[in-house]
């Protein structure tokens, strides 16, 4: 054995050792991540209820999905979650991070307060928010509105307000993470830039516009992509907060992932669910590729 091992050069030995260690996560990824992903492509061409025989039906699942009015509504909902949720959450997070960076007193405490929701179970938090949104006499928000003489709002029971009511706790939960990343980004900008700008007589606004924001570009791109993917995959909040977990009223709050879940585990239409998964996968892939492309331009 020792003889055999000694035949290799040191470089080869290092490579072999490295691959031995890499083999564990590699096997894990191939069997737990990649294989099921490719399996989903295959299942998406089947009619299969998890138990009975699998029946190959080609592209029929996709044809059915694209002909389904609800799919387009659900896709639009999903895009709305990302399109509104990402800019709103990033703007709030940046403003908080920017000012939080300026203060020393209570900095850690406040940062921790913002971070706690990120660590909290989404389901528990969503349930609390669900109760906040209830009508009088038990709803917290409606009680507050009534103090100021503002009429009651239906919130979750509305086709127009429902989606944003569910988005709010999702934005809130993600803030802590975004703030921490923003602060790290701001602190990584060399102090000398700011000092030079100050000596040259640049104002606070000018520094923000000309130095802070451009220097934060990689941070902003990273956060945009991560939170876009996060909002496109929203599930827990909708499942918990919509009545009967159905993404209602009238599907107005239902995102793609919930639709996938319903097809797979309520109706046991595994083929249709897999086809939807493939569609979601492609959307997320495009988002990630755009990120890679943007990051490459940075260098």
């Amino acid at each position, binding site marked *: 054995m020792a003889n055999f091992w000694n035949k290799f050069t040191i470089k080869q030995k290092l490579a072999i050792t490295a691959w031995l260690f890499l083999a564990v996560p590699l096997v894990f990824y191939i069997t737990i991540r990649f294989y099921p992903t490719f399996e989903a492509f295959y299942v998406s061409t089947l009619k299969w209820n998890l*138990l*009975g025989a699998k029946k190959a039906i080609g592209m029929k699942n996709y044809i059915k999905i694209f002909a389904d009015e609800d799919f387009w509504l659900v896709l639009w909902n999903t895009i709305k979650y990302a399109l509104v949720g990402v800019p709103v959450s990033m703007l709030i997070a940046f403003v908080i991070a920017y000012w939080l960076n300026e203060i020393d007193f209570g900095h850690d405490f406040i940062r921790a307060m913002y971070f706690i929701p990120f660590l909290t179970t989404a389901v528990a938090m969503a349930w609390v928010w*669900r109760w906040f949104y209830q009508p*009088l*006499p038990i709803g917290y928000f409606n009680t507050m509105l009534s103090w100021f003489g503002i009429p009651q709002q239906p919130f979750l*029971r509305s086709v127009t307000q429902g989606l944003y009511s569910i988005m709010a706790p999702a934005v809130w939960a993600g803030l802590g993470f975004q703030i921490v990343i923003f602060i790290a980004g701001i602190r990584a900008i060399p102090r000398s830039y700011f000092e030079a700008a100050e000596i040259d007589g640049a104002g606070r606004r000018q520094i923000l516009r000309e130095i802070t924001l451009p220097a934060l570009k990689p941070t902003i791109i990273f956060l945009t992509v991560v939170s876009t993917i996060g909002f496109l995959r929203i599930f827990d909040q909708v499942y918990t907060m919509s009545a009967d977990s159905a993404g209602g009223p009238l599907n107005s709050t239902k995102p793609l992932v919930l639709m996938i879940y319903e097809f797979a*585990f309520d*109706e*046991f239409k595994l083929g249709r669910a897999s086809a939807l998964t493939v569609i979601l996968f492609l959307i997320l892939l495009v988002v990630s590729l755009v990120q890679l492309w943007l990051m490459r331009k940075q260098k």
Partner: protein
Amino acid sequence: MKKWLKKVFALAIGGTSLVWSGLAQAVEIEYWQYTYGSRVEAIDKLIESFEAANPGITVKHTHFPYADYRKKVAIAVSAGDGPDVVQLYYGWLNDYREGGLIQPLSSSAFPHAKIEEEFFPMVGTMKVDGNYWGLPTAVRSLALFWNKDLFAEAGLSGPPETLDEMVEFAKKLTKKDANGNYLTVGFAVDTDGQDHHWWREVLIRLYGGQPYSDDGKTVAYTTEAGAKALKFITDFEATHKVGSNGFMNRGQDAFAAGQAGMVLDGSFRISKFAKTEGLNFAISELPGHDGNRFNFSSYWVNGISSKADGEKKAAAEKFLQHITSDEAMQLWLDTVGELPAKPAVALVDANKAHPLYGPFIRGLSYANATAFVSEKPQRQSLIDAYDMVVLQGADPMAALKKVAKAEQEVFDEFFGD
């Protein structure tokens, strides 16, 4: 071979076969249901009496939360694991049958003539393709729960007997603050609860229609009767303003909190309300219309899973006979509060006159069970139609046509191939 060696062999073989025969006598079967305090207790009692009567058979009782129930059963049985006898909602029968999760009950252990003679006629929904696929221990029906204190306060002496009276009473029971916000709703309408059954099997029929065609393959509620029924149920919130869907989160919560004059629910809710301190309630039969009454009944059945064969199947059949016996049904009523599935047990005077169970049991005699293809999307029909009318101001008939199209697709997909 040496003699002693032969002896050792003989002993070894004898010993092994003894152990084998011992194992063969002790059959263990598994029973699955979802976790619900009194149901678990009732099955534990039934297992105890079954094991005492059938030495050599043991029953392992497994239960887990309702939320995961269907998924776990489906995955376990398809993997050749899981229960031998399994509890399922009657509305899931088609899903389970199509999925190959359960097997038909053998007509030798469960003669069809005997089932049809002994059980309530709605158990007939369990007969598909000439076979029975499951049998209930208990059945459920709907009734009207009303808050006695709120009724007395509003000057009402008894429950509404007709739909018109129900609306009139609800108006009297409703209390609002200065800004018009509900403090107490007259009727706690709740489309996520039992109200879709009420609309489908009671209201539509009271207005002279029927929800589905006789063969159960076509949606038949896009008629004047269907629209009238939808209008009746949405009017509580939209027109009369005596209730709000989702008030206090759920109708049952509003009623338990003493902030709803009336709510519609099943007999399984009695124990919750009975335990609620300070809630003074009574139960009556569902209001009628034009001299007619209808009710909806549903039930959970026990089926034999497709994995059970050989002696396990024989043991499973014995256990199924045991838990659908007359004694089991009375025990189930006393422990769980669900109604016996056989008229001979249910319709005895003591049960019919029972102040809490009586209205439910009397309702059974004019009840229909819906032959669901898939309950969840079918339930969504009423939820969506209701929201279209109440939240979007749609015309009831237009809303019905929309949801009927979606529901018909569920039928077509199921019966199509």
